[in-house]
């Protein structure tokens, strides 16, 4: 059933992040892909959408009182997705697996009577034409396959599910406005400060390579950051390191969940809460000076040693290798 309409949430719409490019790539395997936004897409975003085969962008026109900070509330995003599905008679909704988008997709599913799958690691269809989501659960130790039994399916998909692939031929992309009414009871947003994004490094959620620093850094993230830059990766931390004030974002069950091609943990013990957010990574590497460190149980490769010595030397060799290449 490839005559489906698949709606992909593009929020914010200033750029098309790698996770959204993945959704567009997945969407094309299920049917025709259209995008839904809450603001005007930038010129760059439109060009990228065209390259990925999106002919139509549905831009929500919100009531005046919801155009400010309240626009980011998940119940507002959900109302937009719900209205867009009704407008286009769409069959599938796809969004990235951020905490906000998870809520928005679940709420839209609730309003539409649609089955919801959160944190899919892959999306496909079964022989009967049902949308199917695969998941990696229990800290990456089990795989599940679930099918959506309703007509409409709403899913969030983890980053690094597929490699983004432009459409065979680019298309022209048109933006169409549509009115959205929001009848949910909302909290008031009294203040909102957007986080500055580190533009030189990939974002933690989406990076193909992630280097994490733990308590073993003793507060010096220098070697971790220098190594991350040598391998072109994002930097993350453990919750303990964040609580110490050494870094701002942590990986784990209550922090950011990642599944990159390569995870490198430096001075990280590998506690269950941390593992829950990274064990689905394809290759796991660690540097730890304790030969009994629990993280070694889930590693492919590891060095027993001091993290600043090991990361420093490794970064040097990798930089030299890259220069040669």
């Amino acid at each position, binding site marked *: 059933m490839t005559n489906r309409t698949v709606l992909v949430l593009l929020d914010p719409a200033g750029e098309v992040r790698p996770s959204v490019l993945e959704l567009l790539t997945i969407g094309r395997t299920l049917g025709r892909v259209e995008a839904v936004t809450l603001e005007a897409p930038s010129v760059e975003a439109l060009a990228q959408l065209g390259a990925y085969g999106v002919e139509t962008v549905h831009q929500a026109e919100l009531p005046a009182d919801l155009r400010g*900070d309240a626009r*980011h509330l998940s*119940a507002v995003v959900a109302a937009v997705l719900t209205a867009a599905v009704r407008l286009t008679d769409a069959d599938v909704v796809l969004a990235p697996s951020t*905490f*906000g988008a*998870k*809520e928005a997709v*679940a*709420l839209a*599913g609730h*309003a539409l009577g649609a089955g*919801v*799958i*959160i*944190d899919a690691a892959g999306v496909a269809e079964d022989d009967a034409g049902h949308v199917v989501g695969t998941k990696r*659960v*229990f800290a990456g*130790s*089990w*795989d*599940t*396959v*679930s*099918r*959506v*039994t309703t007509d409409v399916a709403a899913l969030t998909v983890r980053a690094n599910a597929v490699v983004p692939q432009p459409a065979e031929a680019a298309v022209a992309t048109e933006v169409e406005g549509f009115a959205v009414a929001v009848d949910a*009871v909302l*909290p*008031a*947003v*009294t203040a909102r*400060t*957007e*986080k500055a994004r580190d533009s030189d490094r990939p974002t933690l*959620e989406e990076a193909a*390579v992630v280097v994490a620093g733990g308590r073993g850094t003793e507060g010096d993230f220098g070697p971790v950051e220098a190594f991350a830059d*040598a391998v072109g990766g994002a930097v993350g931390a453990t919750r303990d390191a964040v609580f110490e004030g050494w870094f701002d974002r942590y990986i784990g*069950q*209550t922090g950011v*969940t990642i599944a990159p091609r390569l995870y490198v943990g430096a001075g990280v013990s590998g506690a*269950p*809460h941390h593992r829950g957010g990274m064990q689905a990574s394809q290759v796991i*590497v660690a*540097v730890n000076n304790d030969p009994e460190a629990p993280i*070694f*149980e889930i590693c*492919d*490769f*590891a*060095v*027993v040693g001091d993290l600043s010595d*090991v*990361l420093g*030397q*490794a*970064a*040097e*060799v*990798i930089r030299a*290798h890259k220069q040669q290449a």
Partner: protein
Amino acid sequence: MRIVVPVKYVPDINAERKFVDCRVDRDPAVGTLNELDENALEAALRIVEALDEAEQETSEIVALTVAPPEGDVALRKAFQMGVDRGVRVSDDALAGSDYSGTTAALAAAVRRLETEGPVDLVITGMAALDGLGSVVPALLAATLGRPSVTFAKTVAVADGTLQATRETDEATESLTAPLPAVLSVADTANRPRFPNFKLIMAARSKEIEQWTAADLGLEPGAVGTAGARTETTLAAPRPEKPPVELVQDKGEGGKALAEYLIRHELV
């Protein structure tokens, strides 16, 4: 002030967790209170403790779980922390519930508690450590028709208004909502208390109220496997990883690491 804290009975993340016939194995030997719900219980206790004595007298905190009978361990832990009542909703018809069925059951139980008197706040954890959906609080708010404030890092209640701050993936936000409301608290919101001896002893003999789907007026077709909109058709353990390639750093450890990454085309 009446507060309902939904708490989930989950397998301990330190134990070996598994599926049996595509359902989570709820082996009582490893079943426990979802750790993140301790933050919700702590938040509820602090809100009540901040009230004046007269208001504290009339306050009530109810821990609520949708679980099989083994789920009582989660409620016992809630009693140990100091909640007043424990309610368990159990029914064969609820087995296999997905987000929609679980939410319907929780919402119906909150409504039933409301027939005794208003419920000012529903406070949940930020996620259940087995399902990790982090969507039940928002769905509960939508079903009950109340504002939802989720992933709160700081919480204050004054003059019938809930105030909270939170860190989302994109921003730092301050939110307010009039009560009644639904709140979920992050693991960073507080440090859950350790139960004291007196409460541990008292928790043993506290009565747990048991409700069925019929008690809550839930249509059997709307919950459990029958009402589910998703169906898990396969659950399989991941193949075990080959043992780790462990290198002792004797001065060349960094080089060995770099060579491993280069050899596997990871850089």
